[in-house]
């Protein structure tokens, strides 16, 4: 939910710019402070996922836990870190996560994935609470419409896709194509 609100803020900001009005959400103006914090919440979890996955993919510490070959191994690593960042913490059975390396890195990922979202979200809440509520006018962009929903989903997909497309391409996507060709790992 709070992660979603952050995407809503970014989407509102973009939509506001596109209709030529300083963006507002629920009557609160979205300004540089909110955008900065929302950007941190989107940035931080993705950063740890990418960095730790990259380390795991090239070091013996990371690779020794893998039981599966080829792209499936990379998929397992990516899944473990993404899941940890999303505060789920599960991993594929093919990955032995009970090693010092994975316990530490997944632990850190989980902390970042939790507190680098919670703290900025609370800060945004505090800043918005102090702001004056802007009354609705016909120039106000409504956020309870299908159009906004589509835009929101679009922003989430594009941000997520753009961040992870390269690593996913080398993991699950290539695995998918290989599976179609009858190659499994």
């Amino acid at each position, binding site marked *: 939910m709070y992660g979603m609100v952050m995407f809503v803020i970014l989407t509102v900001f973009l939509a506001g*710019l596109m209709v030529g009005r300083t963006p507002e959400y629920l009557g609160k103006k979205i300004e540089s402070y909110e955008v900065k914090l929302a950007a941190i919440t989107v940035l931080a979890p993705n950063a740890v996922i990418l960095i730790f996955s990259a380390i795991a993919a090239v070091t013996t510490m990371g690779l020794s836990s893998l039981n599966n070959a080829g792209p499936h191994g990379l998929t397992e690593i990516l899944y473990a870190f993404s899941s940890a960042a999303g505060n789920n913490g599960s991993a594929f059975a093919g990955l032995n996560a009970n090693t010092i390396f994975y316990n530490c890195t997944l632990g850190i990922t989980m902390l970042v994935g939790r507190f680098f979202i919670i703290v900025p979200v609370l800060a945004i809440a505090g800043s918005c609470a102090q702001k004056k509520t802007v009354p609705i006018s016909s120039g106000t962009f409504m956020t309870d419409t299908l159009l906004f929903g589509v835009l929101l989903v679009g922003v989430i997909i594009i941000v997520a896709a753009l961040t992870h497309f390269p690593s996913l391409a080398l993991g699950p996507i290539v695995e998918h194509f290989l599976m179609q060709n009858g190659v499994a790992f």
Partner: protein
Amino acid sequence: MTTETSMKRISTFNNQMLVTAFTDAFKKLNPRLQVKNPVMFIVFVGAVVSTGVLVTEPFSGFVFQITLWLWFTVLFANFAEAVAEGRGKAQANALKKSRSQTTARLLVGGVEKKVPATELQKDDMVVCEVGDLIPSDGVVIEGIASVDESAITGESAPVIRESGEQRSNVTGGTKVLSDRIVVRITSSQGNTFLDKIIGLVESAKRQKTPNEIALTILLSAFSIIFLLTVTTLPAFVQYSEGRAGSPESTLMTLPVLIALLVCLIPTTIGGLLSAIGISGMDRLIRKNVIAISGRAAEAAGDVDVLLLDKTGTITLGNRMASEFLPAPGVSVERLADAAQLSSLADETPEGRSIVVLAKEKHNLRGRNLTEQEATFIPFSANTRISGVDIHLTHAQDRRIIRKGAFETIRQYVEQQGRVAFPQPVQKTAEEIARRGSTPLVVVENNEILGTIELKDIVKGGIKERFAQLRQMGITTVMITGDNALTAAAIAAEAGVDDFMAEATPEDKLNRLRQEQAEGRLVGMIGDGTNDVPALAQADVGIAMNTGTQAAREAGNMVDLDSNPTKLIEVVETGKKLLMTRGALTTFSIANDVAKYFAIIPAIAATLYAVGAKSGPLAALNIMQLASPQSAVLSATIFNALIIIALIPLALRGVEYKPIGAAALLRKNLLIYGIGGLIVPFIGIKLIDMIIVGLHWV
């Protein structure tokens, strides 16, 4: 060559401007300037690193081309900024030239002395005669003159400037066309209006606006994400290569990674961001509105409530006689005759309109009355009455005609001993007031003749303008000193949403504060000194150039044409500014999808290849680009060229139509979102075909 024609000449692109912009683009390669724009700084650093690789390693035509296009990307962004600045600079130079060449005729103890205009001090007295340029800002303290203000307003019709309360402000750089005036200088050097304009058009003091800052943060965040994506990529590729047993990819080189990074970070909007901001200010200047800060220009797009002074803004300012309404038993001709006689010496527009109406409607010609025949009583603020005493040969035939507001005349006749005021006349006067007009009662020798209706003429087309503002989501509030009845009628005729009658300066300020306390952004248009507190308090204060010096100082925008309906364009410019940024950001991010589909298959195409030449990820090469090299290069070239292609859009701005936020968003999403997804697929494919055709790779 006058400044006016020079302004017209530079308003369109010309070759010289483009050449200047071209050289400026190279001058802007200074790292200290580049670092101000985080996105473009990454490109700059990338280009430097890529050049390093090019010179230290054995020559590669492919690396050379990538490096070349990376530099082009930086230069194109600089070029966009330089073009945007170019117009302003040319205008500023023309203005500076006119100032430095002016000599002032300084009055020292009644003796004239010629000094350069740049040496004038505050409170100096200068003389200006026909053909002289007024050396600096000041107030006319003696004389009257017609002044050509086209240098600052672009308006070629001369204006009258005279000593007194109103119309006494003169601006440095304007030209005296007739007569002689003495001006007291009110601004110290470097602080004049002309200096401010020069500073603004040179954008020396241009600050980033709040939305621009927020957007820069967002763009930086995107850049960091992509920086991480690209820097972690080699690790994933290395893993995959190890697992697949494929040979090391020849494309996992530093220049290719830099090219990928540059393609992904939002360079399109990053490169055009400052050009958009500069051109926004420039658009205002070309509409003859000087924004004291970029913040004000942007805030104008956000205005929720607009407070407008009635007189001169909504109405023409002068009330015109529209009808004679005689009292019972009095002929309309007699009323018209008396009204005309009493107004013959009245030089106010109202007075003249009475004479004209009598002539047009009742064929009464203006007569000449000599001073022996008549004594004119001019209107004074004390008596609030005007008229004429006509001395005829017989003393008893004296005609004493007076006209004035209903209340004033009633008091006047009561003083003269007549108590009963005809009921129908009172009724007519009330009706006139209800229509939004002003009743003037005419009395001759203590006999009430009737009423003249003075109509407040609402400006043509203003109703449509307010309708447009309403569509934009802006509430208009008319402020007037009139009574509630008159105000309501005019408000209805003009189509404003709300009005404030019998408003004092404190009332204006209170209303403004109240609106702001409710969270609205308030715009205020005014010209008088009594508007100063409200202009200063308003989020967007637009002062009329004809207004007093204090009013011009208090506002954060000055309308040189003094045409308040132009506010719509000011609001539109503010909105365009935001929309152009939003649209290009969306476009820039949407472009990335296509670039991924070009570069990722190129880098990873041979991975996990089972016997065949290309691996499974070649399936992602949906554009069927010729080779991995051509794919990387095409994406980089597209990324650079799109900046150039979008410069006109950045300078012109995205079109704004008041069709409501949802419709506007749908339209812009369709054009810049979906368009941003599709265009690069086509563009990259085309470039790929061209460079393969040219055998570049």
